[in-house]
């Protein structure tokens, strides 16, 4: 019902402050558009169908992880463990498959692992009262460590084609990963906006105490939120393994910060209670485009963390400034 709150702007007197509030939400899609135009100038290869599909496919892993991160941030939390969970689940699933388990149960195991990790995060935060970034940061190390133990320093590759289909298969011209990402995004969007638990998540993020005093089960909802984040991290991890046909520990590392960035750039406030999936998707696309653009221009991959970090900081700063306008 945040749209009910946001629409309040239109029903008030039309003055300067409301103009800024009106522009704010439009800024992001406009930014995406501007970026596309810029990139098409910088590289002639940008607007080819091949590249566009490639970019969409590239963005899917980030989109899936960011969707889960959106839910956590909406509830005024944070999950720094998603990168580790991605790697752990990817490694676990591929280990199971390589050792003979059929694909479907192996995937289920991987997803279950993601949910379990999410629950553990939730327990640390709700029951033991650890601040979210300490708890999830610690769990990240544990996930990384478990992945290390699992892989014993080796890399797995040569996974069966039926599994790799998840990463490189097509349904007519649409890549499977894109379908997975779209389905995940739609399901979560519907969940957040149109269901009772979704509204409770917004309530929790906007004002946790008021939510509690209104009879919302805050502990249960938070456990749910972190489990969902673990779940999406697991899905993303499996998608990544299927795409790369490789699993190694540490492979999810850059995604944690990028997911947070996508969510924040998409308009969700880190304080919780504001934002949603559509904005996150735009944020994820922008980030993917930035990396895609850098690649097209032949920039070395060492520059990537610099640019990503810079983009994130600038985006968060702008978000805070535009938020002040609409207050």
């Amino acid at each position, binding site marked *: 019902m945040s749209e*009910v709150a946001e629409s*309040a702007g239109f*029903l008030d007197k039309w003055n300067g402050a409301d103009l800024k509030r009106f522009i704010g939400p439009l800024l992001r899609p406009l930014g995406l558009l501007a970026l596309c135009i810029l990139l098409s100038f910088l590289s002639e290869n940008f607007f080819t169908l091949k590249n566009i599909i490639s970019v969409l496919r590239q963005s899917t892993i980030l989109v899936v992880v960011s969707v889960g991160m959106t839910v956590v941030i909406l509830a005024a939390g944070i999950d720094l463990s998603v990168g580790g969970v991605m790697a752990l689940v990817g490694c676990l699933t591929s280990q199971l498959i390589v050792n003979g388990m059929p694909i479907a149960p192996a995937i289920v195991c991987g997803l279950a692992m993601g949910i379990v990790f999410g629950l553990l995060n939730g327990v640390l935060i709700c029951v033991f009262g650890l601040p979210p970034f300490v708890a999830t940061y610690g769990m990240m190390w544990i996930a990384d460590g478990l992945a290390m133990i699992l892989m014993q320093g080796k890399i797995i590759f040569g996974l069966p084609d039926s599994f790799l289909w998840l990463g490189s298969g097509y349904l007519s011209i649409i890549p499977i990963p894109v379908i997975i990402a779209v389905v995940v995004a739609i399901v979560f969007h519907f969940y957040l906006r149109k269901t009772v638990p979704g509204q409770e998540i917004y309530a929790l993020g*906007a*004002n946790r105490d*008021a939510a509690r*005093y209104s*009879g919302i089960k805050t502990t249960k909802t938070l456990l749910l939120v972190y489990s969902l984040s673990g779940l999406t991290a697991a899905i993303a991890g499996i998608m990544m393994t299927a795409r790369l046909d490789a699993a190694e520990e540490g492979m999810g590392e850059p995604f944690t910060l990028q997911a947070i960035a996508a969510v924040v750039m998409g308009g969700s406030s880190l304080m919780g209670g504001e934002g949603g999936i559509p904005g996150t998707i735009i944020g994820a696309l922008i980030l993917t485009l930035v990396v895609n653009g850098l690649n097209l221009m032949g920039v070395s991959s060492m520059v990537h963390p610099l640019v990503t970090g810079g983009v994130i900081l600038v985006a968060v700063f702008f978000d805070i400034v535009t938020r002040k306008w609409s207050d």
Partner: protein
Amino acid sequence: MRSAFPKGESMASQAALLQARGISKEFPGVRALENVDFDVYPGEVHILIGENGAGKSTLGKILMGAYKHDSGEILLEGKSIKINRPVEALRYGIGGVHQEFMLVPWLNVAQNIFLNREPRRWGIVVDHQRMHEESRRLLGSLDVHIDTTQPLKHFGTAIQQMVELSKVMASNPRVLILDEPTAVLTEREVECLFKRIRELREQGIAIIFISHRLQEIREIGDRVTVLRDGKNAATGLMNEISNDELVRIMVGRNISQMYPRNRRLPGEEALHLKGLSVKGGPKNVDLVVRKGEIVGISGLVGSGRTELARAIFGIGQIEQGEITLFGDKVTPRSPAQMVRKRVGLIPEDRKHLGLTMKFSVAWNVVIASLKLHFPHFVVSYSKVSRLAEKFVKELRIATPTVSRQVKYLSGGSQQKVVLAKWLNTDSKLLIFDEPTRGIDVGAKVEIHTLMDNLVQNDIAILMISSDLPEVLGMSDAVYVMYQGKLSERFSHEEATQDKVASLMLGVGRNEA
């Protein structure tokens, strides 16, 4: 009670030390002060009195530099001054102690008193020894003897207030502003404070004493100014105005109009507490609330009433005792559980605990009853709007649409939204914690009328209030809480102002 300056005409020959002229101040949705005049002379105690929400705290904060006024001017010894921060006010010799202390919990007492003014050796190194000596001296003059090396957090609110006061006294102010200083003090502590105030008055310090407690201000005040709804209502000498007149001026209307009640025969028991003890709160409480009646709990701030309300609602730990709700024994463990059992709490801190400010009226009205209205999981916005509109009409909530953000509503309308939230869950027992605090007089009457309507419909109401006339006027039965112990139950006729007021201060108690 002596007056340090001559009465009547000769007052004009002395110059006022501090003057406020035409002060106005607005907050979003509320006009706190409108064109207010005020002054204070050296060597007098000038009482600033008014109901909750009348603007006296706001005026005090403006004079001590915590708020900036929108229009008007402040004059010190006749010269206009501008104050942006409390530390600037202190430089002018104006010091204030307000209700939210400006203290750092984990620094020790001395460090708090001398924050940013620590005595130094060689200009850089903090001289802890001197700091502690000075702090002990300042506190000692208030008859407070504590270990100043302890972190401030280890002490209760009363001591913290004394620390805050010492902090102000350390800069030798000429004007001292005290905002509700006795709210957290015991009788003995109040006496100490008053003794010190009299000493300061002898020294020629101008003292502004903000309160709404009629009992005390007679003891200490020389002049009194009444504010009502943010405007000047009256100013005069303390010994020329009676208490009844003060109340009449404060409230501005006939008292009987304020508390519209149609008393009826109550139904069966809704809530029964037997020997209830709450961790960090009241002990051994016996209480009954029946359907169709309003039970009021009176008491001083900090006496434990809010802790009781929270415990009934599922927040806070119950150490022993029994709670019977509508005939069934129950152990409240969470608000979610109690809401399911048809209990609602309208909390004292409306803005942070009762409402989610940045969301709309409609959202706030339905948030507690989502599962009730949408058992199939999916939320329909049109149904939400319809429900909200129904309550907006019924409760006469002043808002142009249901999608307006709650933070723009007036205090009275906000309280109605909270009430609507619980009516939406079909609550049968409602706990009101300070139902009309910070609400203008007109809205107060509306809320009281609503409460009366509710009990006509068989709802049980437990009302906690520090507003004595409200408790006396609205309740069918009255209890008084004092330092964690609840008194016996008084019927409406038995509960007289004198009896309740003295019980609030702990007088006439039989020690159990």
